[in-house]
């Protein structure tokens, strides 16, 4: 008889349990999104829709849901690009130039403190700030706020990649006849490409899934999908099938980004 490899057996068993734990909510969301709302409340719940319907998707894609999703895309893409762009510049400065009057660590810590408080601690003053400027409930306000909250993360992640890039590579490039900006484009950027991809993915996840800023600074003219989700009810009845449908649609961009960038994301943890 073949000897059973118990270590491997329990390893796989553990992974299977963990897989179910992680995947079940996703499966249940997809399952719910194809049900009629009455079906959702049935006890015991059914593991496949008793009557398969696209009703919920139709509702989401025809009404405010579509607007909310497109608003979310505009804001998340804009804020991610700005945070990563400024983060790249700032992390280069943090990595390469000394700060006067403050150590580099000190300067970087100051930046990171933004992320040490819950956003709600800042949001009231920020709310009044945008309100005074008359920019409340605009794409602009949301994009700027999200970039500001994610800039520290971008700087912190990218600085690690910049630090691992030896200074002498840039110097060799200068001597070989490339100016600072040519070196940045032809030598530095390709080498921190994986860092950029990982940073894009992480910033995207934080911004795309964010609720409280979306809820307080947007909500009427510019509604993001996270703020729209709790509005999906009729009277006392929560429209779980519509919430599930919107959730499934909202997962799609994140899945695409994670699948595209996963090999770079791993690098952050392996570093």
């Amino acid at each position, binding site marked *: 008889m073949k000897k059973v490899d118990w270590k491997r057996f329990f390893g796989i068993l553990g992974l299977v349990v963990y897989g179910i734990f992680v995947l079940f909510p996703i499966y249940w969301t997809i399952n719910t999104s194809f049900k009629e709302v009455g079906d959702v409340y049935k006890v015991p719940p059914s593991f496949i829709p008793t009557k398969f319907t696209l009703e919920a998707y139709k509702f989401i894609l025809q009404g405010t849901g579509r607007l909310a999703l497109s608003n979310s895309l505009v804001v998340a893409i804009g804020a991610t690009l700005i945070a990563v762009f400024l983060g790249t510049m700032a992390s280069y400065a943090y990595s390469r130039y000394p700060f006067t009057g403050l150590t580099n660590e000190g300067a970087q810590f100051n930046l990171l403190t933004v992320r040490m408080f819950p956003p709600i601690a800042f949001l009231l003053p920020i709310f009044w700030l945008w309100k005074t400027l008359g920019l409340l409930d605009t794409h602009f306000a949301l994009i700027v706020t999200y970039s500001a909250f994610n800039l520290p993360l971008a700087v912190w992640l990218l600085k690690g990649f910049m630090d691992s890039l030896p200074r002498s590579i840039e*110097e060799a*490039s*200068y001597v*070989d*006849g*490339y100016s600072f900006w040519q070196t940045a484009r032809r030598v530095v950027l390709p080498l921190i490409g994986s860092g950029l991809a990982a940073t894009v993915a992480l910033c995207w996840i934080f911004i795309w899934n964010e609720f409280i800023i979306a809820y307080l600074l947007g909500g009427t003219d510019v509604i993001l999908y996270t703020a729209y989700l709790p509005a999906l009810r009729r009277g006392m009845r929560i429209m779980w099938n519509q919430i599930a449908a919107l959730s499934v649609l909202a997962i799609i961009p994140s899945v695409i980004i994670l699948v595209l960038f996963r090999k770079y994301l791993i690098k952050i943890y392996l570093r």
Partner: protein
Amino acid sequence: MARVFLEKVRKVFDNKVVAVDGLTLEVPDRGLVSLLGPSGCGKTTTMRIIAGLESPTSGRVYFDGQDVTEVPPEKRDVAMVFQFPVIYPGMSVYENIAFPLVARKMAKEEIKKRVEEVAEIFEITDLLSKRTYALDAGMKQKVVLARTFVRRPKVYLLDEPLTAVDPKTRMELRTILKRLQSDLGQTMIYVTHDQSESLTLADKIAVMNEGRLLQYGSPEEVYSNPNNTFVGYFVGNPGMNFINCSLAIENNVCILDAQDFRHFLPEISPSFAREIGQRSLIVGIRPENVEVSFTPRENWITSQCILSEPIGSRVVLHLKVGEKVIKAKVPRVEVEPGASIWFHLPIEFLKFFDGETQEAVKA
């Protein structure tokens, strides 16, 4: 091709560390000058100032009489090799070598021709299409050297290019570099802490220590007439013997008095001895110039051999006299430790240095 002139160049880091201190140096057009000195003597900083990667705190840098102190490195037209091979990761060997030519917007065919030529010289033609990450340090440095010699800049700057490579590749590359320099006839500045590399490669050697230029001259000059004790110690393998001594005169004959032994120097005129004999002196002699005998000789100094170190075909004997140890480099012999050996310091090879300033005393 260019004449490089450094005028009173001084570099201070963080307002306290003086890396280069008032360095004035002229590198002739088409010359191969070696900056020689121990680690931290300012030679690398000097190179970086010439390349434009560092700007001097004060002083000027001239190429062919033109002030380039404020010119950024990409506009100086220099090529530099760093101590540790700097390869552009993610590019193939070919792309690495072609990189400086691409910056100059050269035509594709011309680039290809040049890259292949230089790859031939460094014997890396079969590597051209390869990725760089799998190469070992020696191969990487070959690629870097090829990237350097693929163009004809005003000055080649080589910062300890052979330190990080294995001894076999080092010998091979040293030969290639020497040949390239004589073929191309380009100005080349070569930083090294290896005195034998300096002596074999350079037309002129600039010995530096603690940010200062101690001596600048041909290898023969630096080797046989060191300006001060540091140069004598640093150039040569092993370095010069130094003996604290004074000159005395007995019966109108000059005597070198080193406490532990006395050495007759009838060749030195008493007037010279009187002139310099007042102060404390250091006498220096190269180990290869110390004469030894295994049988007693008249007026030679008796010593005990405490150690014999073989170096290639020769052996360095450590000879103990009282508290002093003199090294003598002689053709290979078998010597029992503790054996008595007689030695003699020929006057023509003795160099006198001032005991305080360590500077050479001119006869």
